[in-house]
């Protein structure tokens, strides 16, 4: 079954969607959208490093994403606003990564594959890494769920309940780095943040509890992966962007439905 590249691609997309769903909810709730972007951009430097030292792309991307995430967490609140800091670090890392790639003579690198992902080239080993990483992320978030939620609501509330919200922030940061590293092959550096944010945001209008929002986001993400790949096959469009397009269309439809139900019958004629 795994011999078919479309099957492997679909499984890879669904795996990333599962990890991105609960994590994406926290990214949305905590307004960390730019944080996901920055970690992902930094990962391109990881790709360059792993090609230089001939280690696995996953390991290189994970290492740089981790360093990036930890640096931002450490530097936050020391002189520069968070978004400034992220802007400096993310784009510098991306630029250094692109420059580093250009020094790699003799190796022909398809940079586009890392910027936009190459889900159709996912191997069995990639699949193992993706599902392993996704399982790790989901397990980590499930384990700390109540604490993460409390820390998201209010820092002092977390301290008063007897745990350190900074540790919870660190757990999210680690989960984010792992997700970025496993998703790089599937949707690429530029679209990872989309897989985090769009399904979670689309789930909001249907959800009545934090848990249901994460589950609905997982369903939306998985559906986007399946439908996006299918349409990429049918219309011969790039796979990663097609997945994101399906998610974005779902977001638009669900937001409209949510808006309609909030505003009641007054707009029913429209």
């Amino acid at each position, binding site marked *: 079954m795994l011999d078919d590249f479309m099957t492997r691609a679909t499984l890879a997309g669904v795996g990333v969607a599962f990890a991105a769903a609960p994590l994406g909810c926290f990214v949305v*709730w905590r307004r960390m959208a730019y944080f996901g972007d920055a970690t992902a951009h930094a990962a391109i430097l990881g790709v360059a490093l792993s090609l230089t030292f001939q280690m696995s792309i996953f390991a290189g991307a994970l290492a740089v994403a981790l360093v990036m995430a930890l640096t931002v967490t450490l530097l936050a609140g020391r002189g520069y606003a968070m978004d400034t800091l992220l802007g400096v670090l993310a784009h510098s890392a991306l630029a250094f990564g692109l420059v580093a790639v250009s020094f790699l003579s003799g190796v022909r690198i398809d940079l586009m594959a890392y910027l936009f992902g190459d889900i159709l080239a996912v191997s069995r080993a990639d699949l193992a890494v993706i599902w392993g990483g996704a399982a790790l992320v989901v397990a980590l978030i499930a384990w700390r769920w109540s604490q993460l*939620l409390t820390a998201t*609501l209010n820092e002092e509330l977390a301290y008063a309940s007897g745990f350190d919200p900074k540790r919870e922030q660190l757990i999210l940061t680690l989960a984010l780095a792992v997700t970025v590293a496993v998703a790089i092959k599937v949707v690429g550096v530029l679209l990872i943040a989309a897989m985090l944010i769009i399904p979670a945001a689309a789930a909001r209008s249907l959800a009545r509890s934090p848990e249901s929002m994460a589950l609905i986001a997982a369903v939306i993400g998985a559906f986007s992966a399946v439908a996006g790949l299918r349409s990429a096959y049918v219309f011969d469009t790039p796979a990663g962007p097609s997945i994101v397009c399906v998610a974005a269309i779902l977001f638009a439809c669900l937001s409209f439905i949510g808006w309609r139900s909030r505003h009641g019958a007054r707009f029913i004629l429209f």
Partner: protein
Amino acid sequence: MSLVSVEGLSVRYGANTVLHRVDMTIEPGEIVTIVGPNGSGKTSLLRAIIGATRPVAGRVVKKPGLKIGYVPQKLHIDPTLPISVERFMRLTNRVSQQHCVDALDSAGVPDLLKRQMSQLSGGQFQRVLLARALIDRPDVLLLDEATQGLDQRGSAAFYQQIEAVRRETGCAILMISHELHVVMSASDRVICLNGHVCCEGSPAVVASAPEYRALFGTGTGGALALYRHHHDHHHDHSEDPKEAAQ
């Protein structure tokens, strides 16, 4: 022993000393209020008590097994986060639904259990926060400007609720407020803070302390007449942490 005793506590943010050798205690069942101008370190003191701020000197000693209920100053729930009152209340407390119902009752907001947090009014929101803090039957309740955003009637009712809570559960209460008249009449003890403890005493004794007047003026009128202070130390402003930091 005291529920909480703060000993020689100093807190610094960067070069800015916000608390300088603060001593205070909270005894079982008493209502203690901290008053002080903006930037006087009230919130820092509360943060140090819950362990959110690490002191540069001194320590906070809590009675072993002390249960703290905390009502934060403001709690912004992002509109993208769907959460019901019940889910919010049971987030860190493993308690039954009946417990939640009882806690909401005693906070004066029954029937809110299934509502979304985002649909609550300001007054309801604060009372749900109070209910959440009470749910685990705390030994001491900490309130940080808990009536912010409530109108005068709302906050008077809120303080009456606090007194009722103390009467019914016997839990000690430490609160910060800038609403001097309302707060002080409900307190057993008032601590006036301005980087250090300026003065301290029961509101049955009249508020004529020069430090207190220096901080809040004399215009606050009759309400302050409840509070008297025995002037026992000289006010040397060279030790004032704000000036010392400059």
